């Protein structure tokens, strides 16, 4: 329905640069997530789109038409608040009807659309109920129904699941994604939960201190993090220091933890100090007597911690220089003491700068 363009947008609160020169192009019908730790500016950015936070600089456009000069009530965005913000003095039906009545839509039509919206969020029989009679999950659905019933140009969700318990969170996020696809609506979704972001987004923008660190599809964000921050924030990562020893086209040899690792790296010159990211699941322990696969690299260390987590087991291996290496495997280890960690060097990601 709507493509969103955010151009050079900035906002400071005192000395804090909450949003610092951010530009993003969100495509029509895209499920776009702003991901980052608390205080990174993601909610401020969302509130700028909704109109609750003024811009110091920059512009925001819907389908090429500037909207940041419009008052918040004239932007036709549907927002779902973290606290739900369901009006406590109105019934479920009146809550959903609120935006429709503000638009002076005929009563019959309002009635039809309430039914339709409540059906979409599976609250058909809740029309006459009062908010205080509803559970957290149900309030959440009312908030979503109220936001989508006005057929907004974009749907804005501000950490909508953070007040729900873990199981319901997973259920609701699937439902939100299904709803977005059914309605074919553009969504901006704010969360600090990386798993949630990876699970439902078309694309993710990882934010830090008011700036965008990386924009990309979930796989790209996870598998090719652009910065050490992204590598650590999205999933867990072992960040190791290394030096480029040789460059051969796209491939480089990097000396990391005493071994030479050959992997892909677009940038970096011979002699540059870099950070190498190794995901725990890319590493495995070599069982006694097991042969190292061809082309794989090996690092020797001391097994220092074992955490049995049920489906998987997490290990920590102490390297010779004292730095810890975290691993994930399906089975508990067969050995103790000195172990050999093996990995496909192609899965080592070279990051510029320091960790």
């Amino acid at each position, binding site marked *: 329905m709507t493509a969103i363009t955010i151009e050079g947008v900035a906002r400071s609160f005192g000395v804090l640069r909450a949003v610092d020169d951010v530009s993003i192009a969100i495509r029509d019908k895209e499920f776009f997530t702003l991901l980052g730790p608390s205080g990174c500016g993601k909610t401020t950015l969302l509130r700028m789109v*909704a*109109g*609750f936070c*003024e*811009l110091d600089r920059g512009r925001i456009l819907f389908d090429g038409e500037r909207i*940041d*000069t419009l*008052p*918040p*009530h*004239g*932007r*036709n*965005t*549907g*927002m779902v*608040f*973290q*606290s739900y*913000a369901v*009006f*406590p*003095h109105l019934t479920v039906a009146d809550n959903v009807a*609120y*935006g429709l009545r*503000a*638009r002076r839509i005929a009563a019959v039509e309002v009635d039809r659309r309430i039914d339709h919206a409540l059906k979409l969020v599976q609250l058909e029989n809740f029309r006459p109920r009062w908010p205080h009679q509803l559970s957290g999950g149900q309030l959440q659905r009312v*908030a979503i129904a*109220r*936001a989508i019933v*006005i057929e907004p140009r974009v749907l804005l969700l501000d950490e909508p699941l953070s007040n729900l318990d873990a199981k319901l969170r997973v259920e609701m996020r699937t439902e939100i994604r299904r709803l977005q696809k059914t309605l074919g609506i553009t969504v901006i979704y704010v969360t600090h939960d990386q798993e949630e972001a990876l699970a439902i987004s078309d694309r993710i923008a990882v934010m830090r201190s008011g700036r965008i660190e990386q924009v990309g599809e979930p796989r790209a964000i996870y598998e090719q993090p652009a910065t050490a921050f992204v590598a650590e924030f999205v999933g867990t990562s072992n960040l190791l220091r290394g030096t480029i020893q040789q460059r051969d086209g796209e491939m480089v040899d990097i000396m990391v933890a005493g071994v030479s690792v050959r992997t892909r790296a677009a940038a970096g010159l011979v002699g540059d100090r870099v950070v190498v990211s190794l995901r725990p699941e890319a590493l495995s322990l070599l069982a006694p007597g097991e042969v190292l696969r061809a082309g794989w690299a090996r690092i020797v260390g001391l097994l220092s911690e074992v955490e049995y987590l049920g489906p998987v087991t997490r290990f920590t291996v102490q390297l010779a220089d004292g730095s810890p290496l975290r691993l994930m495997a399906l089975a508990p280890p067969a050995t103790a003491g000195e172990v050999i960690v093996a990995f496909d060097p192609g899965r080592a990601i070279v990051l510029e700068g320091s960790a």
Partner: protein
Amino acid sequence: MRSGLGRHAFPLGVVAIAVAFLGLFFLYPLLKVFGASLLDAQGTTLTFANYLSVLSNRFFLQGLTNSLTIAAAAAAFAILIGVPFAFVLARLPVGGKPALLALAALPLVLPSFVGAYALVLLFGRAGIVTGMLQSLGIPFESIYGAKGIVLVYALTLYPYVVLPTVAAFKSVDVSVEEAAQNLGASPGRMLRTVTLPLVLPSILAGGLLVFIEALENFGVPFVLAEDKPILAVEAYKLFVGETASNPASAGVLGMLLIACTVAALLIQRGILARRHFATRARGATPLLAVSPPMRRLGAVYCWTVIVAALVPFATVVVVSLLEFRGPVLQYGLSLDNFAQLFQRSYRPLTNTVLLATLAAAGAAIIGVPVAYVVVRHRSRLSALLDVVATSPFAVAGTVLGIGLVLAYSSGFLILTGTWLIMVLAYIVRKLPFSVRSASAILHQIDPSLEEASVNLGVAPLATFLRITVPLMLGGIVGGLVLTFVTVASELSSTVVLYSGPWTTMTVAMFQALEGTSPGVASAAATVLIVFTVLPVALVYRLLRRHELSML
């Protein structure tokens, strides 16, 4: 780059209206009082002579000392009575707590000078109890003077300490107390070293309210002080003047009163500045398990305090229904006193209802938007607005009344002698309460509710009317009633500002005090009691307890 003015029109408009109102009817009158204190007899040259003459006058110095000692003693006794009361209410398993709390708060809406008058009826020179004691041959010292005044203050103002302290006792994080006990502190030691220090800010806040109220009170010393000088009363006497009005000396006394209040506020700030405890109870603080005798002792204590505080008022009601022949009590039931009271006209009663209604409406119309701006549009301007709008609390009613007369008896706007000047004084005086109670409610309304409404397409002003006001309604109605009630029993600025046709019930009673028959005075007092207790009883469910503490 955007039409910033449009977006800020609402808060700026509210600030402009509030500042204009308070500037005209609060700051400008105070400036007039200050001016009067600095001008010579001809009103032409600036001089400190007035200050020198007042401060070198034994009588006025004695007045200053009296006012300060009485106010400090009142605060101390209110704390002594109120803190144990609050503790029992918050932490002991005693029955009938809602009733206890309601009855404890009741003296706040009752006119305190009626309590003083009751004391005279009972223990005065011709008092009922005095008479009985004397007929039994037991000598009884007079109730007049400082001890009577302090007694009335302690018994009518102690709820100022009880209400915030109950809330504080209830919000103490129980795990802190458990930690103290876990580390080996006995329950008594825990109370002394952990619980009490945590609730100290609330106790001091309550004590400060008592101090300020006692300092500014006009009616109680008027009834009980006899020839003892009290600042608020002397300022009134100097200004209204039995011989000639002396605005210069009245102005000096007014400034002294303000200075005392400000000093008390600063001392309280100073004490609290070094103790900032933000504890947050995770759940309801549990009641202490105490032995049945302890529990009974607590209940007996609370009921004793309540009875002692309310018996004087009940006495007045009973006395008003008795027959008098001249000043002599006949012990026969009769409505003669009321007939005599209203014999000339019902005007005082209708005036009181009319003026209090107008003042309550006015305070809400200005106070609610001010609270909204203060809570929702945080800026340096709104912080200033908060300070200015709540500062009338620190100014004695007599002083404000004098200022309004000085400012508006001549010149561009003449208001002296009208009903309007009284209503304006009431609105100014009750504005702090109106703002505080409205902002207390607003703090409990999630701002995202308003944002949700705006997001759904409803403009800010319409959102305020459709979402904010309905959610605040219970609190607004409660605030209106409390303002009405406290205006109905207001005396200190009324006595300076009223004119013949605009005599109120409080003035009628004030005048009856000077007559010989206690019958008419007690009838007037009873009417006041009914008109203050009844509205509060009707809307009691709507009131939040903590609001009472801000009256």
